[in-house]
């Protein structure tokens, strides 16, 4: 796959087939030039996005990037100023939220405090006029599915955060929505619970064949959950692709920095080398030529003897569980972050030399502007 292929429509031509959707016959959800303005600011700016049946798409972006507005626009809670949303080929313009047949799980769950767990889960079924027997059967089924069997009578106020999340999920799933949308589904839970639930969710959606559109600001969550990741910035789509594509080849500096990469500098590429503030750096074969932006993944920063390569002072060490992130300050150049094994990490204050590994280096689109 060439470096240009993972580009989202927001930043590139965008009319080519989506990488993850290529295998799917037709999109279930389609946004076409969707635009929402709050005063002068555009929360959604000409967004084009497709979600195929059975696909799980995660919209990733910092707060204020417009990802929640995207969900609200699809749900019908936020009218569009321009563009259109269609589901199964049907234009949803003018269809009120309660007739769209999509599910939305809210960021902080929004369970109805005056109803018990069963009442919450059955709510959507009741709105659709399901019979009592049908409701209770479905409630039982779903509570079992989310791992809370027999919790129907419980008061929602007595639930823990994780349990509330499960009830909210069961409630959203109960009416069998065509599309399930999740707004920061795991946002408020603690880390271990989050990691466990994200796996459970992925398995669940896979089993049920649910089509899912989720938004999150947590890349780990997005990468773990999604078939495809969409990165948003200022109401536009910055990149779209599989988690691997996005991780390996961030579309631009913004995406790179959002993913947590700090070794990003302006560079001029000629052949298989680039001129950077850190000196000459090797780049992969076939990189775009001329002025550009260079990303060096921490794994691509190799520490050696101070005499070799770029000479740096070690200014900090952060333990990251599997590795240590080492902060390096070269003379007269931007800081560098290196990843190295526990035993290899140098002491703060010592000097080290840096060599670059072309395999962990990418040349990004666009000049540095962030």
């Amino acid at each position, binding site marked *: 796959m060439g470096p240009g292929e993972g580009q989202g429509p927001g930043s590139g031509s965008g009319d080519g087939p989506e990488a993850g959707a290529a295998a799917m016959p037709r999109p279930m959800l389609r946004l076409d030039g969707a635009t929402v303005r709050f005063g002068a600011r555009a929360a959604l700016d000409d967004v084009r996005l497709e979600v195929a049946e059975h696909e799980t798409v995660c919209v990733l972006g910092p707060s204020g990037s417009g990802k929640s507005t995207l969900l*609200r626009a699809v*749900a*019908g*809670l936020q009218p569009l100023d321009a563009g259109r949303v269609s589901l199964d080929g049907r234009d949803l313009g003018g269809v*009120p*939220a*309660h*007739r*769209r*047949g*999509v*599910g*939305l799980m*809210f960021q*902080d769950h*929004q369970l*109805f*405090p*005056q109803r018990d767990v069963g009442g919450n889960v059955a*709510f*959507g079924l009741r*709105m*659709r006029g399901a019979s009592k027997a049908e409701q209770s059967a479905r409630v039982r089924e779903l509570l079992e599915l989310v791992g809370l069997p027999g919790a129907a009578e419980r008061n929602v106020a007595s639930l823990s955060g994780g349990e509330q999340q499960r009830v909210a999920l069961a*409630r*959203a799933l109960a*009416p069998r929505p065509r599309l399930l949308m999740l707004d920061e589904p795991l946002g408020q839970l603690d880390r271990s619970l989050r990691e466990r639930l994200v796996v459970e969710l992925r398995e669940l959606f896979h089993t049920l064949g649910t089509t899912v559109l989720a938004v999150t600001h947590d890349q780990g969550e997005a990468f773990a959950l999604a078939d495809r990741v969409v990165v948003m910035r200022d109401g536009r789509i910055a990149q779209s692709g599989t988690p691997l594509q996005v991780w390996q080849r961030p579309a631009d500096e913004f995406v790179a920095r959002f993913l947590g990469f700090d070794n990003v500098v302006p560079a001029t590429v000629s052949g298989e080398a680039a001129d950077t503030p850190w000196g000459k750096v090797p780049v992969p074969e076939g990189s775009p030529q001329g002025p550009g932006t260079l990303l060096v993944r921490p794994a691509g920063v190799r520490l050696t003897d101070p005499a070799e390569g770029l000479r740096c002072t070690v200014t900090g060490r952060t333990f990251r569980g599997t590795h240590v992130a080492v902060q390096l300050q070269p003379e007269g150049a931007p800081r560098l972050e290196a990843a190295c094994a526990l035993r290899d990490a140098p002491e703060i204050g010592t000097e080290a030399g840096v060599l670059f590994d072309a395999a962990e280096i990418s040349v990004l689109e666009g000049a540095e502007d962030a």
Partner: protein
Amino acid sequence: MAVPVAFFGLFFAYPVAAILARGLRADGVWHFGRIADVVAQPDIRHVLWFTTWQALVSTALTLLIALPGAYVLARFDFPGKQVLRAVVTVPFVLPTVVVGTAFLALVGRGGLLDELWGVRLDTTVWAILLAHVFFNYAVVVRTVGGLWSQLDPRQEEAARMLGASRFAAWRTVTLPALAPAVAAAALMVFLFTFTSFGVVQILGGPTFSTLEVEIYRQTSEIFDLSTAAVLTIIQFLAVGAILGVHAWTVRRRETALRLVDASGTARRPCGAGQWGLLAGVLTTIAVLLVMPLAVLVQRSLDAPGFAYFKELTSDDSGVFLVAPVEAIGNSLQYALAATAIAVVIGGLAAAALARRDAGRLVRGFDALLMLPLGVSAVTVGFGFLIALDEPPLDLRSSWILVPLAQALVGVPFVVRTMLPVLRAVDTRLREAAAVLGASPWRVWREVDLPMVRRALLVAAGFAFAVSLGEFGATVFIARPDNPTLPVAVARLLGRPGDLNYGQAMALSTILMVVCAVALLLLERIRTDRAGEL
């Protein structure tokens, strides 16, 4: 939104405009020059001056006397607190004609003060001021106390940990937090006393006259509609200004504070100082609020074997076409109808106002809803007569006119009670329901209603009590064969003879008991939120 606007347009703005036009329009031309003429009259200036200063002094006096009460009811926990809270609210919903009579019995000739110390306050301005305190004590206690009980005491504790003395902590933490509520309460009291009618008329004698009383005299007695129209406009402007400032302080209060559950902030009083304060407040309430009511009851029982009460059931008194006791049934029916109207109109208005995307125009309507409280009942009553006289709206002899007029007064209370609660309902909860397939109507029923049910009950209760006691407008439009309780009381007072007077007292007592019971029930379902009343 359209319905409340239409309601107020049709049943308030239009009649008032019609009566103003009758006074200021001749030969198709408005004569605004009349305004300058009227204002130039020394008598009128005297009225304006008196209206303003008595309202200022009444407000200051009410704050001074009621703030300790607000504190005690907010922060102290003691047996009978709920009953006490209901008791202090009873005067607020009692009809002025009853209160005026009762109050006269306390500070007037042969009243308690007279008997104990030979002090008489009737026909002095003191009687008016004290009666205003009597009426408005509840406004301060409920507005300020409601907020006070929800202020987090830990904030004051935090200040004390940082080295502030008890007083300094109160002054620097609690007082600024309370200030908007105090200001809102003060403005409300100012509004009520500025437009005071019954109290001034009964206790003030012919020498003291507020704008409202003067409007009544000019319209009803002297029949000088143009002077009345000018005075109405002046009062309208003044009330509009007061309401504007009030809306502003309320909005500040709603946004600025983080509140806690009221049930956790009160504790038993400890130490001589706090017990003393409690005793002082209880004494004040007993003397100022309970005593006049007690005198009323005592006078109603002042005949052997409940004779006055028994007499209420006989219909040969000639005062009415029916037995006075039927006034109770009429009152209840009217009040129920008025409550229904007020709850529907006020509820819709509150729902519209509570919307997050409510524009400036809509928020302006918030203040507008309060205007009926500040417009003379006689203006509205006469306005109804000349404005609603053509089919299909010839309502002049329709029973619905009474509940309509009463609802005008009830709506502001409904809005005031519902608004904070509705604003507190999380919009996303509604959205959650909508996404799950609930239509807007279902959303309201499934999400809003369960959450505001208690507030709705409280609002309905207030509207009911206020409608029950409404006198000014009702007396103009109630049909004689269907008098309400306050109207019946006034008519009975207007007849010579011991029996009539006793029956008036007995009916007043019944009215008071009904109001008190309604309020006690409300105390049980009081919302946790800081409503305004």
